[in-house]
């Protein structure tokens, strides 16, 4: 699994911008999760790594790490699709800051 990684944006000088809207792919320059009100939390004992959540996540924030499922909270918006789609109830949505 390759997920986008955070990288420092190139500078803000004119010469740092590309000519036209095309630039090296595969990285992001800013976190984007500020409006999340609920977060997905894994109940690892129920998860069989079917990866249905990975396939359905609209923001590509579900990934596998060391044989376990993980969420990228820098980009997860808390939509809850992963929890809805999980056939084993292995993902629960918990209120942020509770």
């Amino acid at each position, binding site marked *: 699994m390759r997920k986008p990684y955070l990288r420092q944006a190139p500078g803000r000088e004119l010469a740092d*911008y590309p*000519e036209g809207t*095309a630039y*090296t792919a595969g990285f992001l320059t800013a976190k984007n999760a500020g409006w999340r009100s609920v977060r997905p939390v894994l109940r690892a004992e129920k998860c069989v790594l079917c990866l249905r959540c990975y396939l359905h996540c609209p923001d590509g924030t579900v990934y596998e790490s060391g044989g376990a499922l993980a969420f990228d909270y820098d980009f997860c918006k808390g939509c809850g699709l992963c929890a809805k789609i999980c056939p084993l109830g292995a993902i629960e949505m918990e209120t942020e800051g509770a």
Partner: protein
Amino acid sequence: MNDGCAQRAFLSGNEAFACGVRLAGPKVISAYPITPQTVVVERLSEMVEDGSLAAEFIHVESEHSALSCAMGACAAGVRTFTATSSQGLLYMAECLPYAAGGRFPIVMMNANRAVALPWNIYGDQSDALSQLACGWIQAYAQSAQEGLDMVLLAYYTAEHPAVRTPFMVNLDGFHLTHTYEVVDIPARADAEAFLPPFETDNRVDFDEPKNMAFSAGPGHCAVFKYKQHAAVLRARAVVAEAEERFARTFGRRYTGLVENYMTQDAEYVLVTLGAVAGLCRDVAAQLRRAGVKAGVVRIRYMRPFPDAELTAALESARAVAVLEKDISPGRAGAVFSEVLGVLAGRPALGAVGGLGGEDIAARDVHAIFDRLRAGETGVYFIGIGGVTI
């Protein structure tokens, strides 16, 4: 016509243009037919079918798709062509700034035609002149030969690394697209020597993946627009470079962003664009014989706009008229509005004519000069007059 040798042929503007496109060798052509552009895409589809043009011809379902498709092909790294007119140009209008902002150097022929309503299939310049701000380079031909030559010049300029901007070549509907003249068709080897293969890093690449056609928020968006503006301004120098190279290769020389006729000491200058310029020059020559210091400027490029060239050409002018085939209701013709910017307050007269295919006669052009010499200013419609409310 397919043996690759230079030759002369009796061709319509559309047919000559198609020959120019074949010489440029686009790999993808996506187009939707519309009068009076239809013949150019018909000829191109025949060339693809008979094997004399190794291109993919994609019959799309609309002009919006025609240009979207051309962008996709260009983003795959190949030379692309499309053509349209009038309602078709307006239907693809959403995609025009998209192609310009994406810096896809697509070349498009536009057959200038009236825009509805009233519904009208005949020639005027309302379509293209309504799209001056879309970010494309815009040139206007006055003959089938110039149309053919402009295909090669357009690709050279559009694809130049300093420019990387789409290019719209305009041919007056019917007056150019459907009239016939003897045209020199360059040899394929010469065309290939003139026009380098298309190379760009603004394309899909499996080894170096790119995000393409992305968004840019406040604080970034303006930089991209700034760079577009700078690129189109840089096209001034590239047009000159291309025309010099063209003259060395083919022996035909063009005159840059404008073409001047007897402007050096002219007191009354008529500025126009497109095929009607020939008639204007004839009238100016008659006036010269009668002792009137008349001159004509034919604008060849509306983008980049020829500020410096017009300033120089109009230096001796006491008054300036503009003849154009469009009207921006409530203001004037688009060309008149732009030319005002270089006149430093001198008297200016806007003549709107040829709308919906109306003929412009020599007497109409004489009348423009008569009005100009009588000190008339403002905007009037040929055959109708100025608006009084």
